[in-house]
């Protein structure tokens, strides 16, 4: 029997992944890269939910169900995001967020 991975390790991985995503959102200038960084953040959330549901929750399915929902929402979010980015590209031939300067940030 293989010993299970301790909760701390899993949460550490998730937090690191979340940090990488956070850094990506704040530092990347390409709109598609920002959307990918947001995906990383949401995946960190999924890891957290699954780990916690295995170790902490009285009902082990709760976290997994939430993860499924989060994946679904994330997919929809990216679809919407890419549609808007595509529209910007059609109007401006450029998806650098620094050039989104018609409105002052």
């Amino acid at each position, binding site marked *: 029997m293989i010993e299970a991975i301790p909760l701390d390790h899993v*949460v550490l991985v*998730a937090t690191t992944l*979340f940090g990488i*995503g*956070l850094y990506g*959102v704040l530092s990347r200038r390409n*709109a598609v890269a*920002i*959307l990918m960084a*947001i995906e990383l*953040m*949401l995946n*960190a*959330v999924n890891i*957290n*939910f699954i*780990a*916690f*549901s295995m170790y*902490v*929750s*009285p009902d082990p399915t*709760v*976290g997994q*169900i*939430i993860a499924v*929902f*989060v994946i679904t*929402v994330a997919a*929809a*979010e990216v679809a*919407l*995001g890419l549609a*808007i*980015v595509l*529209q*910007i590209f059609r*109007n*401006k031939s450029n998806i650098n*967020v620094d050039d*989104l300067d*018609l*409105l*002052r*940030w």
Partner: protein
Amino acid sequence: MNGSDFAFLLPEIVLVATAITVWAVDFFTPRDRKPDLAWPAAAGALVAMAFLAISWGEHREMFLGTLRLDNFSLFFRFLFLTVAFFVIVGSPGYVRRKLRNAGEFYGLILMSTVGAMGIVSSREFLTAYISLELVAFGFYVLVSHARHEARSNEAGAKYLILGAFSSGLLLFGISLIFGATGSTGYAAIAAALETTPDFGMVWTLGVALVLAGLGFKVAAFPFHSWAPDVYEGAPLPITAFLSVGSKAAGFAFLIRLFAEGLFPVLDDWRVAIGVVAVLTMTFGNLVAIQQANLKRLLAYSSIAQAGYILVGVATLNADTTSGMLLHIAGYTATNLGAFLVVIYFHNLTGKEGIDDLRGLYRRSFLLTLVLAVSLLSLAGMPLFAGFMTKFYLFTAAAASQLWWLIALAVANSILSVYYYLLVLRQAFITPESEEEEQRPAFRLPSHARATLSLLMVLVLWIGIYPSVFVDAAEAGSRALFGG
């Protein structure tokens, strides 16, 4: 849960059905008739309001306790339907001039409303989150709905990126709270807090991230940066909808979360929320003073208003909750009035600068009157809703003895009078040039006159004789706090 429970979700069902019908009919409607789809969509909102009446006084747990229909949710569901109704009725003129897919536009407004109605009823994180995303997704599309306008695209992209980012923060916070307490239900979280008062760093970080995520949604400082840009770039009716609907939904989420889930630890967070409240209102007011664009001014003013409501969250109890509900209702009527004036003014002139208001009193008395009533109410002048509701909210908050908070809130309220009066000076006093004096008076469509008058009456009603609204707000707060 049994079959008859669905009767209590009839308002939501009616809205979804109306939205789908509007989308379907849109396919068969010639382009120049599409803006008229507003009327069936608005009728759907009215029918949903009629169905809400049957759940008055009912307290029902549904779907394994994930939804709770009580007077609190009833209050907000009614509010959202009212908002949707006025936004839809106010938009056909604008839609005709600017937007192509009118059916889609009205349907998405209804869908976002359904999401908002879900948030206020849910007492579990996942349900609330999914509802929140239903609201947000509708808004992402609506904000960027003027597809060929670069400004609208840009606003949509900014809103989506920051909205998705804030959802990420919110979800990570929820996952940590889930990790600490083993549950996502508010009641179970409160129960866990009773037995274990301190979960350590995981818990603190979780709550902080949830607050940050919701802070984005209600545009609280320092998470407000998206609001002015998105408000300016979005189609005007959507700006109106965002500034009242999405804000009220965020606050409803916060209030129910703190009242039912995090109440045992609220004392740890009071000062932090209070500081955010003060920063939010001060920042909103100071920046609003410098604005030349009416839409942007209203955006910053709505940031400041969020600060006032946060005072109620920081001092949360039964009285401040009814104060917040009342203030949100008054703010909704007032801000809708102000935005409808901007929408109609924009329809007639294509402009939205504060300078462009010169001579407004000569060109349309009704527009000027409603603008004056709305702005004076936002400024918190007596006789108007803003004074009554703020007075009620701040008096209730004073019981918490956070005097610095109340003092700064009142000071801010006085400060804000200045920039609202600047706008009114343009409309009333600043003389027109000779050339401008030749401009003809405005001719408003009759439905515009009706909606404007209705909102003005509502603002004055809440301001002068608010007992009906106070009773409703108190019933809503009793649903959360008992007694």
